[in-house]
Every structure is written in structure tokens, then in C-alpha cells.
């Protein structure tokens, strides 16, 4: 089933097309990847899907509902979570507190519940904590739960960002360069974490630079170049696509080796 | 028609004062990325020092403004060194609170020295000019002329001199500027000093028309912030256009509607701009 449908999406910044006529289907239970050189419009595409930017053309549909012009907090409430390219965390808070922040969107209790300590407030506090712990355990960082976010290594921070996103109970997770800044040898572990997400009922759309990681991970790959679609297909198809090799894979593959 | 010409010149004179005060504030925002909430207090201090040199010491009017401006330049530099520099890496609320602290310090200081009562500074420039049938006081003509000269000098300074160019460079790109060897902390000092100097010239010019009091900077503070938000924080042309626009709007509404409305114009402008475009008009959208 198609979870997210992007149709002819476009965004112009003062006469320049950051994204142009991009169409993509994200299938439920799959991992879809977007790749492309720097400035290809990958992050802009994410920002369009999540509602940070209003697209100048095209539409985004999530589970059959048009969400083209909805705002980020609606997107999260609808079930689309995201992480950022540069890890955004609450540095002065512990990992558990960070992940608990992800529970805000699912919290119904109001200030009155908090003041009067109603059963709903107590029940919700308990549920929130259980869900946050579950997300931490899933990301295998529960032993760090009382550490401050600024004190843990980069990889744990990246995992915390994922756990925080998972705490919002998304059906679709947008990961913006999830393995960026992680040493090469640790990317396998991180790849395994991403691979286990669909089993949890979370489909994934990710942007990534590390080619080796993408090829073993993604079911479908969209290649962007100058904001436009260059190719779309399975990893095998992408790897053998002459346009892609010329524009992107060829050059970076050589640089990497 | 005579009334209109009269009020137009009043508006232009007031606009000159607003411009001088607003330009310093917008420069400080451009370079230091902070709204200097103590700007109105610097303006007030400039007015009192001009008053002191003119009335108590007895130096000529222009010289009094000049000496006061130079002293305020030093005060501005001191403010940057002692208050804003130590806070450059703090959360944005901290330097605003510190600026409010500085503002109260200056106000209390002025009150301790000169008292809380209003003071009048008699203008040494008397006489009136007849322009198109309207009687314009010479003081207002002086304000307009001096404001234009100072603005021209400032434009020349920023475009031509090394110091001015570094201010412009930092305003555009702080990181890039430090990469090419510009010392940002030097430029920050210079900018705050310059902003205090310009505010003093504005205050010295307008003091003979208005009364002096330790809280005279409060209303001006609000107005210059309205101007630079209207013109775009950090934009020099914006501050000039905004300054004259607000001044003329103020004098005209005060003349043709009521003085109360005239006083409220700055506030209405501020609220309207923030309601329509919360980051101010004319500001470039920052890409996330």
C-alpha cells in the first residue's frame, strides 16, 4: 500500500527551483531512500513533506489525506516524524527527558489535569514513560537514559534523535542523513537499527550520503539532481543506470575509494 | 496649506532625529545581532551631557554636542566591553536583560546628577525662516541640515573608510569577515560607540525643542525600535526611510487627527508590522 504520495512537487526560492516536479511513492513497510549530490534539493524535499515549507506546486498525500499545506505539528500528529541532518537534541536534558519530549504530541492531559493530579494525568504520565523507555530500548540506548544529551557520543545522539521521533508513534519516519558524522565502522549497527524499523510498523524515507549503507538498506531509491528526478528504482537498477553513474555514483565512488 | 508646509518641516526635522537614533540601533543589530534596549538611555544621556556643556559650562552649541557625542562614544565602547562582550555566547534573553539593567543604571545616574524634574535647554539658535508662507523655526532647519550632513558623512564612512567597510562586511557575514582577518570584537566596540555618538547628535539637536528628563529615552526607544522593525533589522536604508516615514506620519496625525493618536502611531506601526510579518518588513527570508 502506498503510504505517502508525492506528486509533481515543486519549490521555488526567488526564481531558483530548489525542487521541481518530483513524484515519489513511499510504500508501507518499506525503506525508501533519496540520494543526490549536495544542493540537489533533498533536505528541501523533506521540509516540503513535513510542512516547514509551502510548496509552490504539486501535492503531498499521506494515507489518502492531502497534507500539502499542513503544518509540521499536524504532520507529526498525523504520523510523520522526522530527524534533522545536524542532530537537534535538548542538550541540557537527559536522554529520557529528550525522548519524553516526543510524547508531547500524544499527550491529551491539560494544565488542569496536572494541577489537580487527575487519574488521566497519572495514567498518561505512566504511559508516556513506558513508551519513552520502549523507544530507548528499541534504539539500544536505554543504559544511557540518565546521561545528558551533550555528554554522549555522536552515535548515541543520533540514536536518541531516532528514539525521540519514534516516541511520537509515527507511521512514517523521515531520516535526514541519519548516519552523518558517525564513524564508518559503526554505520552497520546503525543500518541494522533502520532496517528493523519496518518490522515495528514504521516505514522509512531517508536521505543519505553513505552509498554503501543505502545500497544494502533501501528497497527503492530516488536520485535527485538539481532538484529534479534523475532516476527511480531498486538499488540494482540505480547502480546500473548510466545517468546516475555519470552524474553521481561515478564521481563519489571514486572519491570514496 | 501653510499649516501643511509647517507640519511637513516639523516632520522632516523630527525624521532627521529619528533617523540618527535609529541608524545606530540598526547598525548594532546588524553587527552584534542584539537589540540594544539601552539605546534610549544613551540618547537621554547624550541630551543631558549636551545640556551640561551648553548651559553649565557654557561652550557653544555645536561644540557642546560634539563633546557630548565623543563622551558617549566612549560610553558606548564601555557598554560593549563590560556588558555585551561577556554575554556574546549567552542565550538571547540574557543580553536583553543586561541591556535593561544598563538602561536603569543610566537613568538613575542622570536622575542623581540632574534630578528627576524636567529641564529646559534654551536654544542658542533663534529666529525663523519663511518658506512658502510658513514660519519655520531656525532650530528645525538646523536639525534637518545637520541630520542630512551626518547621514551623508556616515554613508561616506561606511562605503569609503576601512572601519566602515569592516562594519558592513561583518553585518553581511560575521564568520566570513573573521576569516579574512577582520577582528569582530573591535568592530563591535566601534559600532556601539558609533551608535551612541549618533544618538547623542540626535538628542543634542532635538533637546531645545523638547524637555529633558531621565525617562525621555523610553518613548524614543519604542519609536526607534518601531522604525527599525519597519525598515528591517540591520538595514540602513530601511532605518532612514522608516525614520522619516514614522516622523511625518506622527506629525500629520497629531495635526489633523489628535495628538493622542500621533503619539500612538509608533505603537500602531509596530504592532501592525509584527502582526503582518512577524520578522519585520523588508527582511530577507532566512533559509532553514
Amino acid at each position, binding site marked *: 500500500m502506498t503510504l505517502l504520495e508525492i506528486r509533481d512537487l515543486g519549490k521555488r526560492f526567488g526564481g531558483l527551483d530548489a525542487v521541481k516536479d518530483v513524484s515519489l511513492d513511499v510504500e508501507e513497510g518499506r525503506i525508501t531512500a533519496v540520494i543526490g549530490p549536495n544542493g540537489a534539493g533533498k533536505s528541501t524535499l523533506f521540509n516540503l513533506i513535513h510542512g516547514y515549507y509551502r510548496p509552490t506546486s504539486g501535492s503531498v498525500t499521506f494515507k489518502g489525506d492531502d497534507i500539502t499545506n499542513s503544518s*509540521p*505539528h499536524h504532520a507529526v*500528529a498525523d504520523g510523520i*516524524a*522526522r530527524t*534533522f541532518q545536524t542532530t*537537534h*537534541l*535538548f542538550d*541540557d*536534558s537527559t536522554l529520557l*527527558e529528550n525522548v*519524553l*519530549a516526543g510524547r*508531547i*504530541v500524544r499527550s491529551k*492531559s491539560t*494544565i488542569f489535569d*496536572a*494541577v489537580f493530579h487527575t487519574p488521566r494525568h497519572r495514567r498518561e*504520565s505512566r504511559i*508516556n514513560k513506558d513508551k*519513552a523507555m520502549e523507544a530507548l530500548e528499541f534504539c539500544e540506548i536505554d*543504559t544511557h537514559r*540518565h*546521561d545528558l544529551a551533550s*555528554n554522549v*557520543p555522536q552515535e548515541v545522539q543520533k540514536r536518541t534523535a531516532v528514539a525521540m521521533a519514534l516516541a*511520537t508513534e509515527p507511521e512514517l519516519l523521515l531520516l535526514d542523513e541519519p548516519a552523518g558524522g558517525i564513524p564508518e565502522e559503526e554505520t552497520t549497527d546503525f543500518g541494522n537499527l533502520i532496517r528493523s524499523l519496518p518490522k515495528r510498523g514504521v516505514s522509512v524515507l531517508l536521505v543519505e550520503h553513505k552509498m554503501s549503507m543505502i545500497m544494502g538498506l533501501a528497497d527503492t531509491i530516488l536520485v535527485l539532481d538539481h532538484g529534479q528526478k534523475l532516476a527511480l528504482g531498486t538499488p540494482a537498477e540505480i547502480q546500473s543506470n548510466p545517468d546516475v553513474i555519470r552524474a553521481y555514483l561515478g564521481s563519489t565512488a571514486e572519491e570514496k575509494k | 496649506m501653510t499649516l501643511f508646509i509647517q507640519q511637513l518641516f516639523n516632520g522632516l526635522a523630527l525624521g532627521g532625529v529619528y533617523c540618527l537614533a535609529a541608524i545606530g540601533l540598526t547598525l548594532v543589530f546588524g553587527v552584534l545581532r*542584539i*537589540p540594544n*534596549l539601552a539605546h534610549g538611555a544613551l540618547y537621554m544621556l547624550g541630551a543631558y551631557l549636551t545640556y551640561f556643556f551648553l548651559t553649565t559650562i557654557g561652550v557653544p552649541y555645536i561644540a557642546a554636542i560634539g563633546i557630548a557625542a565623543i563622551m558617549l562614544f566612549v560610553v558606548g565602547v564601555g557598554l560593549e566591553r563590560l556588558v555585551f562582550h561577556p*554575554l556574546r555566547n*549567552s542565550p*538571547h*534573553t540574557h543580553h*536583553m*536583560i*543586561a541591556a*535593561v*539593567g*544598563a538602561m*536603569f543604571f543610566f*537613568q*538613575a545616574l542622570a*536622575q*542623581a546628577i540632574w534630578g528627576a524634574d524636567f529641564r529646559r535647554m534654551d536654544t542658542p539658535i533663534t529666529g525663523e525662516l519663511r518658506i512658502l508662507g510658513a514660519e519655520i523655526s531656525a532650530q528645525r532647519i538646523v536639525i534637518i541640515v545637520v541630520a542630512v550632513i551626518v547621514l551623508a558623512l556616515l554613508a561616506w564612512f561606511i562605503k569609503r573608510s576601512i572601519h566602515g567597510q569592516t562594519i558592513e562586511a561583518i553585518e553581511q557575514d560575521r564568520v566570513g569577515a573573521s576569516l579574512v582577518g577582520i577582528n569582530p570584537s573591535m568592530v563591535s566596540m566601534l559600532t556601539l560607540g558609533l551608535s551612541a555618538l549618533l544618538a547623542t547628535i540626535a538628542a543634542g539637536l532635538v533637546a531645545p525643542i523638547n524637555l529633558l528628563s531621565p525617562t525621555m529615552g*523610553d518613548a524614543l*526607544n*519604542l519609536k526607534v*525600535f518601531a522604525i527599525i*522593525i519597519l525598515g528591517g*533589522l540591520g538595514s540602513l536604508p530601511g532605518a532612514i526611510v522608516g525614520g522619516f516615514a514614522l516622523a511625518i506620519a506622527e506629525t500629520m496625525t497629531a495635526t489633523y487627527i489628535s495628538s493622542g493618536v500621533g503619539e*500612538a502611531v509608533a*505603537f500602531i506601526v*509596530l*504592532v501592525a508590522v509584527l*502582526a503582518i510579518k*512577524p520578522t519585520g518588513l523588508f527582511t530577507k527570508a532566512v533559509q*532553514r
Partner: protein
Amino acid sequence: MNALKNPRLLGMLAVVIVLAAAPIFFAEQNYAMRVVTVGMCAAIAVYGLNIILGFTGQLSLAQGGFFGIGAYGVGLLTTDFDWSFWSAFIVTIIGTAAVGYLCGLIALRTKDEYFAIFTMAIGFIIFLVISRWESVTHAHSGVNNVKFPEGGGIIDFESPVAMFYLVFVILLICIYVTHAIRRSSVGRTLLTIRTSEDLADAIGVRVGFSKQLAFAASAVLGGIGGGLYATVVGFIGPDSASIDKTFEFLMFILVGGMGTVAGPLLGSMIVTFLFELFQDFQAYRFIVLGPIIVALVIFAPRGIIGYLGGIVDRRSRKQKIAEARRTADGASPEYDTAKSGTVTSGIDPEETK
């Protein structure tokens, strides 16, 4: 409930008990009673400032204005309109809530310096209206003979001690509400906004709406503080709405600690005491206090409670980290986890159990 093991709660209790016992020692000294009572009125407004500045991270310079609306609301309604105190008080609270909510409609769209400038404008306008609208507010002549709250039975609020306990009880409620907000998801929402609006947005927080509510709540507490102030003092002038008041509140919260539960109370009491020491130089006290506030922001921005809380948090975190490690069967990373000196956001998830 292991409240006795919680140093935060113990500290709070100690301050509250000392304050509650104050009338025993000062009951005969009306002046001292009044000073402390006025300080508590200010503390209520400071708890309002705490919500918007401490929790949400937005500098509001309108708090003095809302305090003034509260004071003039109660003052004018009980004198010129001859209402009873309680009806005037309730109507005033509703009024400040409405003004705060309306201002919040614009404030929610602004942030950081724009928010501060906008609220500065609001505060200034409120002051202008109060000090210039002579036919209604009497401008500089102020409002005299504000009514005392009507007591019932043996309670007579003309006695300073009764008045003290009235303000004290309302202050306690404010403190409890602050505490409740802080450990709930509402508090977490505000702290999220303080840290990063972008990140808050990304995890589904309704940033603008939350900011508007926080601003309205801070206005309401400002109004409550002002309303009580009017009845405690009996006479109010335009200076009760001036930006000087805002500045005093800022000083209170800075000394005590922004974003803490006990900070506003402790800061208000300490600085009120300092103000009394300086009171011979009333007009010039800012010559000393201005630099003090600058120094506080530069050298001790977390305030007394902020620093104490930091120590407590670090200790309890160390214990919890050790515990987490033990249960994790030797999964021991090689970096030092407890070295940090930074304060946590303060929402202790264990507390909510």
C-alpha cells in the same frame, strides 16, 4: 512518597515554613508585615514572568504593565465604582486574562528579540494609558483608599496579619501550579520551545498556541499580583505599571533562578529585603542595582535555586546512571558520563511515577 529524600522539596518546605511563621515574630510591626506582604504580591507576578521567561524562554517586558492593570482594575472598581473587593478582583483577573490573550495573538507570531520588543511596546502603552488617561485613572493623583477584602466571621483583612495570610495562600497556590506545570507535559512543551522552536515544531509541539497560552498565563499572574498589591497598599499611582516594575521582577527572578519552582519566591524575598536596605536612596538605587543585574546575568545567570538545583540534579543523576549501568550487566562505556556541570531541564521523569 519519599518526599523527605527530595532535597528540592525539603528546601521549598523550609522557605514556606519560615515565611508562614513570619507573622509570629513581626505581628506587632505593621511596617515589616507590609513589606513582606508586598514582596509576596510581587512574587506572584514573578511566577507569571517565570512561565514566559523561565519556562518558555521569551523575555516579556510587559509584566509590569499587567501588574498595573491588576492594581488599577481592583483600585478603580473598588473606589470609583464602589464594588466589593472580591468581585473587583475576579473581574480584574478575567480582564488581564483577556488582555494577555489578545496580546498573545500577536506575540505568538514573534520570537526572541521581536517578542521582547513587542512586549516592551505593550508594557509602555499600558503605562501611557494609565498615566495619561486622567478622566478614568486620575493619572498622577493615583487611586486612594482601595478597599480591603471583605472578610467573614472572625477574619478581618484590615489586620496586616490576615492580609499576610491571604496573599500567602494565593502565593502558595501559584507555587503549586508552577510545580504542577513543570512536571507535566505542559511544562515539557514550554521547555521544548525554550530550547529550540524548530525542534519543538518537528516533534509536533504547537509552538505558537503554547506561547500564546504561556503569555496569557503570565499576564494573569501579573494581574493577580497587582490586584493584591492594590488592596495591601491601599494607594496606587502610575508607577505601579511602569517598566521599573518589570525591571524589579526581572531582578527577583534572576536572583532566585529562572525556570525554577522556588526561585521566584526566594528571589523576591531576598531582593525585597535589599530594596529595604537601599530605601533611603529610593530614586538612586538603580545606580547600584543596574550593575548588579548586569553582573548577575554575566556571572551567575542561573540564580540561587538554579545552582542548588544543578548540584542536586547532578548528584541524583550520578546515582541513577550508576543504577542503570548495574542493571545493564556490565555494559560500561569508557567515557565519563557524570562530569557535566550543566543543569538539566528540570523535568524529572521519575517524579511523575
